[in-house]
């Protein structure tokens, strides 16, 4: 499959074959780290982060450097060009002159799409407001596949802020391609949007909506996300649900062998005491971002097919 010059903007643009292909190439990348050390020698990646991010930016930079490529970055894109009144279109058109591929994070939804329209070189979306973060979804899928050797047939529980969380929206959308059982665990106020549920139904995916960890039962994956206080119009409502969705050592009894994932950063939704258990795979998940992003960069630059 030739993905040269392809933009990676939204999971919604991807067919199942595209996703599977990227996962396959990610696995090859992970197996051949040593061999691929000079694969992107001579290529330059620009990272444009209009919003703070540590993990995603470092992960992309690490991926590029491990392939022998160079990275140029604007430390704080927001305070430089944008502050001078430059449009995003002009910023990316200028940065295009200096690089072969651009990774962008922007607080406005749709920013990566707009950037992709403005330039010829590939754009990779590293988060556009509350909308999409496709490479996170791909590394989530890679993690699940790596852990179980498959995605089909698994039961996957998504927990926390399912209403506003872009990570869970993208992941649920991508899981629509697989034969999975889904469980949505959230307070009433933060349930999965009906648009996504309708989409899953149309794909024949069965799901269950519940409001407590106790009701999960058996699951292969528990994907935890943070519940933010500012999502609740009434602070007393937040106080009520706060703590209900925390993973503590005693919670593990309810979860059996389920693997716990989290896009990170966590605040207090998973106790650090969980980190050393067999259940915790969230740091492995973060590490998986490297081979996945290595594969994506090499594919869109047309260095591998």
């Amino acid at each position, binding site marked *: 499959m030739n993905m040269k010059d392809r933009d990676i903007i939204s999971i919604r643009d991807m067919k199942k074959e595209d996703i599977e292909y990227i996962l396959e190439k990610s696995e090859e990348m992970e197996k051949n780290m040593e061999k691929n050390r000079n694969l992107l020698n001579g290529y330059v990646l620009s990272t444009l982060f209009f919003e703070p991010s540590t993990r995603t930016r470092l992960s992309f930079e690490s991926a590029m450097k491990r392939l022998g490529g160079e990275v140029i970055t604007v430390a704080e894109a927001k305070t430089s060009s944008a502050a001078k009144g430059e449009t995003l*279109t002009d910023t990316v058109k200028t940065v295009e002159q200096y690089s072969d591929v651009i990774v962008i994070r922007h607080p406005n*939804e749709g920013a990566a799409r707009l950037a992709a*329209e403005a330039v010829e070189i590939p754009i990779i979306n590293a988060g556009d407001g509350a909308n999409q973060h496709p490479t996170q979804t791909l590394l989530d899928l890679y993690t699940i596949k790596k852990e179980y050797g498959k995605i089909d047939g698994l039961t996957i529980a998504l927990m926390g802020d399912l209403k506003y969380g872009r990570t869970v929206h993208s992941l649920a959308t991508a899981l629509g391609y697989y034969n999975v059982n889904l469980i949505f665990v959230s307070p009433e106020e933060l349930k999965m949007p009906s648009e996504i549920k309708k989409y899953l139904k149309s794909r024949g995916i069965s799901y269950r909506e519940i409001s407590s960890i106790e009701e999960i039962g058996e699951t292969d994956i528990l994907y935890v996300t943070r519940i933010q206080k500012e999502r609740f119009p009434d602070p007393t409502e937040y106080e009520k649900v706060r703590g209900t969705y925390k993973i503590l050592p005693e919670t593990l009894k309810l979860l059996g062998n389920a693997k716990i994932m989290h896009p990170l950063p966590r605040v207090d939704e998973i106790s650090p005491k969980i980190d050393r258990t067999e259940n915790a795979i969230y740091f492995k998940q973060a590490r998986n971002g490297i081979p996945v992003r290595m594969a994506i960069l090499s594919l869109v630059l047309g260095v591998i097919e």
Partner: protein
Amino acid sequence: MKKELKVSAIKDGTVIDHISPGKAMDVVRILKLEDYDNSVTIAMNVRSSLFEKKDIVKIENRELSEEEVNEIALIAPESTINIIKNYEVVEKRKIELPDLIKGILSCMNPNCISRREGTPKFIVEKKKPITIRCYYCERLMEGDEILKRLRI
């Protein structure tokens, strides 16, 4: 029995017929007919059959641009457009919603990049009821949300 026209005929211009009842004023607003120099006739709740009602807007000496037709398609997709020349209908066309709508409305999401720069674009996801998705922020819009965001 002779059929009597409740609304007088126009010599040259456009008749927008079969508008869903109650939508005529939205059509007038979209086409900015309040400021139009020639005569505009608006008929509301006209019986089109035993069970159905419709609105009609007749505009003298004006043909609609493609963009205007698309705008009407968004709020009154069931309407038809008749081009009148010398009291005769010279062309009758059904309104068709294009697959991609450009520029005629803004995105409902205040945080969408298209509210800051570029031209808003929408993909038509469903024609009945009309559901459109912002090409940039991927939000779905339908019904009143569309009407509110039309540049009227």
